[in-house]
């Protein structure tokens, strides 16, 4: 488990959200336009939840290169993440066995508010 990227810190820029909108096809203006986000009661455009989840998956990519396979990945989106927020994602080892590893994953913004939480289950490739 030495290979886990235990912590990711990333600023959610407007350009990042714009690029994710383009690559994912999710071009809801609430992700892209401040005026639309403001109308919905948000201070800034809202980052895609799936962008956060995709960034979170980076913590396990070294393991996926080292014989482990992803079995299950779950995330709960508990608070919105906005453009210009800083996302910090951390993982914690919940359990480890010879054939299976379970990680807890949590993401927070710069105000230490939890924005996402979840679980990652990895199994060794047979």
């Amino acid at each position: 488990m030495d290979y886990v990227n235990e912590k990711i810190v990333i600023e959610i820029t407007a350009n990042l959200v714009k690029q994710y909108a383009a690559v994912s096809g999710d071009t809801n203006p609430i992700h892209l336009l401040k005026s639309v986000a403001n109308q919905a009661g948000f201070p800034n455009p809202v980052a895609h939840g799936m962008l956060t989840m995709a960034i979170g998956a980076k913590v396990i990519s070294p393991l996926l290169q080292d014989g482990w396979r992803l079995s299950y990945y779950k995330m709960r989106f508990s608070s919105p993440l906005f453009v210009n927020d800083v996302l910090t994602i951390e993982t914690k080892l919940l359990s480890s066995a010879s054939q299976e590893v379970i990680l807890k994953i949590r993401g927070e913004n710069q105000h230490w508010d939890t924005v996402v939480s979840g679980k990652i289950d990895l199994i060794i490739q047979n």
Partner: protein
Amino acid sequence: MASLLYLKGMKEMIDKKWIGTTTEWISTKVTRKEVQEFCTVIGEENLLYQNITVAKEAGYADIPLPPTYPILFWQSIELPWLTDDFTMLQSDQSFSYEHTLIANKTYHCQIQLQKLRTQSNQQFIVHRLSIDDGDGLAATSDTTMVLRYQEE
């Protein structure tokens, strides 16, 4: 429950008669270039997703798809119970894998409306995306959304 997912939706509440309904199967194949573009956006720099030699040395038949990539398959599937533009809140998302999905392989996908619960002016909806690799189910992905309706 605050992440937004832009989908086709309905201005009126979804009828519970749709529970259990599945979409048509669609076929899709992801190219290595599409994987690389996705990884560039999210800042995934692991060579596993960039270099076929590295992927094969790690035991994959081709470049693996990043874990959340299958959510993009939604864009190719029409859901008959969601007909108008609408914005929903996404509350939970999960991916379950029998096999790692890879580039240059054809997958067959469909979405089922699995659960629908109405509470006041909100509906909680669970959809399951099923991904078949021709030999059987390779992966599923559950998406839980909240649809909020304006009071008349």
